[in-house]
């Protein structure tokens, strides 16, 4: 059991960091092994924002090992060197935790595949997100703990998705935590509640097509699956609709891009989702109490039906 939540403000910005924190904290009973945020903040759109890690925060059942913090500095140096070699200029640098970094990068490219492959060829380095607006922040603990650790409560933006995780299919660590970046697409992120039963078959096919997997978490498949569809010209909505038959198992998932937010529910409707929709706000979560944290007044909500896909624009 995991909990997912998301919201999109249409035609305006809001304090999405604080709002999503409230929604995810309301779902903490669904899992607090790790919590992740995908925040689409207000930016000038000139630079890429790269969130990446140079080490793991290791919890129960993880295949990773806790390393000495000194290796993080070595890896960071190699990242800096590689960026310089590619002509990417680091405009702003933040190091929230020894293993977690945020770079604003002046880099002119539309193809992030080569860029990401070079950065991630450095052992121990993983890009959590890359985009002009998207920032993925994920770590062990419940929503409030992660929000406080990374000071997310003041982030202003248009939309956000998040995930409160109870680890079942893989260990407790950051690499298995949601949201997953839709590598190598700028500003694409995914959160998922459920289990995918044809994970390995799909993974083998997608890896043969050159797609990359960083974890053994079945949910990562959704991000890669959608990304691969978009790579071949499908729209977000088309890719999501194809996933209803291409992915086997039970799932409810959200996908967000720079200017949109979408949801999909499997054909058996086995995983919960409650949705509120108005002209200026869409809020959804695994349980109504998540929505109540941002809309305490009496509102009309509903459960989307089986096999339903919906996409909203900002």
């Amino acid at each position, binding site marked *: 059991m995991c909990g997912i939540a998301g919201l999109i403000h249409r035609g305006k910005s809001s304090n999405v960091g604080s709002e999503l924190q409230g929604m995810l904290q309301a779902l903490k009973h669904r899992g607090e092994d790790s919590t992740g945020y995908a925040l689409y903040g207000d930016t000038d759109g000139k630079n890429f924002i790269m969130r990446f890690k140079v080490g793991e925060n290791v919890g129960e059942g993880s295949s990773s090992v806790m390393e000495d913090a000194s290796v993080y500095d070595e890896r960071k140096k190699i990242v800096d060197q590689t960026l310089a070699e590619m002509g990417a200029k680091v405009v702003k640098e933040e190091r929230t935790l020894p293993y977690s970094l945020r770079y604003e990068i002046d880099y002119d490219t539309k193809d992030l595949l080569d860029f990401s492959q070079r950065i991630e060829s450095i052992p121990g380095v993983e890009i959590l997100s890359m985009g002009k607006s998207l920032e993925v922040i994920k770590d062990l603990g419940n929503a409030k703990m992660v929000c406080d650790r990374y000071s997310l409560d003041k982030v202003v933006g248009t939309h956000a998705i998040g995930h409160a995780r109870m680890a079942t299919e893989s260990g407790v660590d950051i690499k298995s935590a949601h949201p997953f970046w839709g590598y190598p697409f700028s500003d694409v992120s995914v959160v998922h509640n459920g289990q995918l039963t044809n994970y390995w078959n799909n993974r083998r096919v997608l890896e043969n097509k050159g797609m990359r997997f960083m974890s053994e978490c079945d949910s990562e498949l959704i991000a890669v699956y959608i990304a691969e569809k978009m790579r071949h010209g499908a729209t977000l909505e088309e890719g999501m609709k194809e996933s209803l038959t291409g992915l086997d198992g039970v799932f409810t998932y959200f996908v967000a891009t720079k200017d949109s937010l979408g949801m999909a529910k499997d054909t058996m*409707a086995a995983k919960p989702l409650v949705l509120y929709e108005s002209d200026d706000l869409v809020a959804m979560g695994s349980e*109504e*109490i998540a929505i109540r944290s941002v809309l305490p007044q009496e509102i009309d*909500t*509903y*459960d989307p*039906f089986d096999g339903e896909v919906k996409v909203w624009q900002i």
Partner: protein
Amino acid sequence: MANLKTVSKKSKAQSMGMHTEVLTGRTQQKFFNPDEAENFYYFGTYDVDFNKRTELDVKDMTAPEANKEIDNLMSQGYGTIVIKNPQGKHSLGVGILNKLNLIFEGSLGYFGMGSCDGPIVRINGRVGWSCAENLMAGKVVIEKNAGSCFGAAIRGGDLICKGSVGARTGIDMKGGTIIIGGDAGAFTGFMMQRGRIIILGDVGINLGDSMYDGTIFVGGEIGSYGSDAVDSELTQSDQDWLKRKLKVAEIGENFDVSKMKKIVAGKKLWNYDNLEPTEKKGAI
């Protein structure tokens, strides 16, 4: 009804719609004897007065605190309780084995009104998954929409949703009636064993999948039939019952019931009629 004082034990029980046969289970030798009816009571039930009314604001209460307070109010004789600010909390109003007029001014989360026997409930909002699961008697009316597993395993009573419901409505139900004013999702009536479901709107795929028994009436379109769910003739008796039920439910009173579809079990997977009475009880 027959005069219970002058008829035999067996006739007495049958007049009340009950049974006297001895069961052969290891823990329970006797099922019911109307001569001992006064010995049958629910622990923790109260005499309440419907005209004695109060309000309870649960905004800052947990679900167990709110449920304990409802119990406390019933013990003081309150027969009408209005719950303010439920705000989507889970498990509110569960385990009420009492006659009670309960009104929620707002929406409930998961498992609302579970395992109840007797109360009349009106929810002026929406309910989450598994509303009124295991309802044994009483009436629960939801003014807006409901989540999945609506009325799972109910054994009796009327469960009414004026809006639309999610998937697996009436899953494993063993009696009672579920009435939906809007649409219903996939697997409605999945493995239902007794009782009736009425859906005025459309219904999703796999309707009545693997149903043992019971009846489903649908007013709109059907996504697909589940395994062993088959059409049956809608009789005049069915139509009369539907009209009565919709009127009592304050829903679709003017709905043209003559065009509804009636779905029953094909009895190729399960057939209760082939079971001995004691086996049937064991199965249910």
